[in-house]
């Protein structure tokens, strides 16, 4: 753990700014809906396997059926969500963070 003692009043000041609230809100707005969406998509795969076996058994090419394609798509969506998040964080979250820093460090320190 870091050994420096944090200056509490400074933390509280940042905590109170609209930017910080906005930063946390943007983060939550991405993370929670995305998690719910992914979990539903994953649950859909499991539920279709359990209850829609005729649909999952439809062959697409050779022995490759819908179930197999669904399973592989799970990997693809996992990766895509992670990629979206990375982009979202770089484009939307980091600029807000930089603004907070600029305000906190005062106009004379800011670049």
């Amino acid at each position: 753990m870091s050994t420096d003692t944090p200056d509490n009043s400074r933390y509280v000041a940042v905590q109170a700014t609209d930017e910080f609230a906005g930063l946390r809100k943007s983060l939550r707005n991405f993370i929670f809906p995305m998690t719910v969406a992914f979990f539903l998509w994953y649950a859909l795969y499991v539920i279709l396997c359990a209850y829609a076996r005729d649909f999952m058994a439809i062959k697409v090419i050779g022995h490759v059926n819908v179930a197999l394609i669904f399973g592989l798509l799970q990997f693809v969506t996992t990766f895509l969500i992670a990629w979206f998040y990375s982009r979202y964080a770089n484009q939307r979250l980091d600029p807000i963070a930089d603004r907070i820093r600029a305000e906190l460090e005062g106009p004379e320190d800011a670049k």
Partner: protein
Amino acid sequence: MINAAHNPFVIPTVVLMTVATVAIGFYGLRLARTTSDFLVASRMVSPAWNAAAIGGEYLSAASFLGIAGLILKNGVDVLWYPVGFAAGYLALLLFVAAPLRRSGAFTLPDFCEMRLGSRRLRTLATVFVVFIGWLYLVPQLQGAGLTLATVTGAPYALGALLVCVVVTANVALGGMRAITFVQAFQYWLKLTALAVPAIFLVLVWNADGRPSPVDGLTFPQATVVTIEHPATLTMTDGSVLTVKAGDELTFPAGAAVPAVAGMADGLDWLLPGRGGSLFGTYSLILATFLGTMGLPHVLVRFYTNRDGAAARRTTLVVLAMVGAFYLLPTIYGALGRIYTPQLLLTGDTDAAVLLLPSAAIGTGLGGQLLAALVAAGAFAAFLSTSSGLLTSVAGVLATDVFGRGGSVHTFRLAAVAGGVIPLLLALNVASLDVSQVVGLAFAVAASSFCPLLVLGIWWRGLTAAGAVAGIVTGGGAAVAAVLVTVLGPPLSGWPAEAVAQPAAWTVPLAFTTMVLVSLATRRHLPGTVGATMLRLHAPESLHL
């Protein structure tokens, strides 16, 4: 059973791979000087190295051998496992990776103290880190023993002992930075060891006129099958044959493979969700989805990223690597049905990856070299997962059990202690089912550290008393389920299911207890909670 005992290349390849591992460990030793170097590699590891290292320890023997075996036996059902493992990384990225890195804590107990300021909670977290670490180490060592026994006929204890000694020495002498290089090397080794034979196997399959892995399975050559587990076989003429362990069946080349009761057959093999209950499936999904973030050896790796953006990039690369890796056991499982169908009868399906190269390509030079490569890759899997686990167990033991000084000497002592105990367990405990114990380790992590991390990072109302109560109830219940599974009497009906896959009830239990007790003890909220939350969520460029 086809045995690779006559393969002269297996032992040299395994030895070469082990020597390379040790050499990289010593190369890293020159760079590791202070305790901080040992524990988090001074946060100077690049995302690509870090991601390969995470892949190296995350893709354990259970994935390398177990999933191919499960696919051979159960069909594409088993895609749930790897999808869950990958999704677990996504949950880790979204919920905990960046805030945890910013917390500045080296270990999970450090995080507990930093967030809630409770020594009692810290001690409890230490106990859970060590328990999960050991629970995950025992099957690794056992698997190493069984692998070496399968490919060389060596006694079971030798493989376990070998892995334990190499890993302990490497961790004790090199620490985390060395381990980062070792792990990254292991990932590429594992990928090569699976991918190169897979390419040849697919070529052979192509040359054989692409036989179907789904129906009409036949024995490629005359085969004598020694039954290891009692089973009911349905012959192709419709007659039913009950066999017991020790029975020998002889099949001429081209004979049809009988169907085994309880195993996927024909078109069913391509459809998930046939075997097992829905409860077990949901439980496993919950355990893998939420348990990944609670595995101590996975978490510690995120401390070695330079900043939040690097942590995000690392996860992205890991997801790509995990996805690429899991395509390979699928190929082995499918081809195993064509070339090693006798494993369906013996029940020894975990050996599919090890036996497939010589079975499909032949026992000539090429087949032997590929078989040796696969064996070395399997060994690499045991070495790398065990290294990562031992590093985190030793790190926690060194800071919390052997005194708080955290000197390099203490870390080495802790590494030896952390390695000896699972070895003794692995040598003495009767054979545990590898993939089931791995699932249980995920379940314990999902019911203890997952609620602690998610609530600790995202809810200011969490109190120390709430966290302790949640971990004791949810994590304790999962631990009890583990102990009953390993030591208790065989169960039947719904208690058996609830105990074999406990996550579906222990995770909600842990979350609910944590929230309710926190609300009841609201007056004891740590006074610094505002500052702590800011530190977790504010960008680190603030330098607060």
